């Protein structure tokens, strides 16, 4: 039985993958610029990030439409079906990550003219790991490489460790001098947004493993004692 539709299916799958990578590029830019806006208190840049989020949202819907059309017209099965479903989940996660970047930009806009409570040290480290995780999880997606995806997920522990450290540090600022509270909270919210981005990158890694192997499970289950963070 010869079926000519495979060529169409392959082309459409490739187009979806290309758009996923395009979206990942926009996301990476938003995350990286959010740190820049935070560190330099650049409200113009923050406004650009907030405005740019619409483009990422639109791309997400376009990719989901393409996935729906592919399912309806090509009836993908097995590995193809898992790839389409994984793409839909991944773009959902990336859209939320971009929202977190926009959230940080909004924090910058809300901070007023007050200087940062302290120089940024651990937050840029978090951002570095976040960006690496996003990049490598997408590389694993393209390579359909579950091993690489597992390595991505392992990096989330670094982010969580940095976040806890920031949390404790900012808490001690607030306890020692309550007048620092609002400035400490801005940084804490920013760190929290980056921490969530790391969690979403872990979700992408989970989806890549599902796509490559058909196995569906959580990679970094939340330890019970961290629920308050």
């Amino acid at each position, binding site marked *: *039985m010869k079926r000519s539709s495979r060529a169409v299916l392959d082309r459409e799958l490739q187009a979806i993958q290309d758009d996923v990578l395009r979206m990942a590029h926009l996301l990476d830019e938003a995350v990286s610029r959010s740190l820049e806006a935070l560190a330099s208190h650049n409200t113009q840049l923050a406004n650009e990030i907030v405005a740019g989020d619409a483009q990422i949202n639109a791309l997400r819907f376009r990719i989901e439409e393409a996935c729906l059309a592919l399912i309806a017209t090509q009836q993908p099965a097995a590995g193809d079906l898992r790839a389409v479903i994984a793409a839909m989940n991944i773009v959902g996660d990336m859209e939320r990550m971009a929202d977190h970047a926009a959230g940080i930009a909004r924090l910058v806009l809300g901070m007023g003219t007050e200087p940062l409570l302290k120089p940024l040290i651990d937050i840029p480290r978090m951002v570095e790991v976040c960006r690496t995780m996003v990049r490598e999880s997408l590389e694993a997606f393209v390579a359909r490489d579950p091993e690489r995806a597992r390595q991505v997920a392992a990096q989330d522990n670094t982010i969580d460790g940095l976040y806890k450290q920031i949390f404790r540090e900012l808490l001690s600022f607030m306890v020692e001098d309550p007048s620092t509270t609002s400035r400490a909270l801005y940084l804490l919210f920013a760190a929290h947004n980056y921490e969530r981005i790391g969690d979403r990158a872990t979700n992408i890694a989970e989806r890549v493993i599902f796509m490559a192997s058909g196995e569906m499970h959580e990679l970094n289950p939340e330890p019970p004692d961290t629920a308050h963070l």
Partner: protein
Amino acid sequence: MDGVADEAPILQVLGLSLYYGDFRAVRDIDLEIRPRRITAIIGSSGCGKSTLLRSFNRMNDFIPGFRAEGQVRFAGQEIYREGIDAVSLRRRIGMVFQKPNPFPKSIYENVAWGARVNGFRGDLGELVEASLRKAALWEEVGDKLDQSGLSLSGGQQQRLCIARALAVEPDVILMDEPCSALDPIATLKIEDLMRSLASAYTILIVTHNMQQAARVSDFTAMMAMGEDRAGMLVEFDATQTIFTRPKDQRTEDYVTGRYG
């Protein structure tokens, strides 16, 4: 294997090889068919799906030079054993073919015929109605039972053939591409019918339509042709598993249209 293991099989295939003369068409099949479930047999053309299906009620016996090695056990009994009456076996394991093949007789006679031949002593009229109802055809033909079976549409003819098979009260129904000559609506009606029949009957279906196998069956057997051109079983599992995460690369390639 996703719940396959917990029911006693109604058909057991053990080391089965099927020959036409010197040519081995199917080799070394081990398979267990669960009762009151729909099992689809898929695979590319010429991989022995129909040959395997037809071995379950010894339909291949009519082909000169046909020979079976290994075993097919139906309800625990080896069906290729000497002394097994193939005619009564076929009464318990009925068959529906690719092209609807009603007799050139009335709708009533098409359904009543098998029961009459088998010496049915009850109320034939009741049996005909009950069989047509089970085949979801009564509403359409109940008032014209004396019309020729050939006057019906293709989909109706196929349901008439299913009613005919049901009238002799089989345990298993074999379907060899039962929808390949039907339009999509008639096909969906047959699939609906299969789902409702599966509460009482074991159904095996050979189909080239993978979406049909995915829609209708509980279990799927994937066959492929080996290097010796003999068909073999590649993978057997719950249908959902076969179409979402098959274990064998040949199954993956077949269900995604890469090969076959």
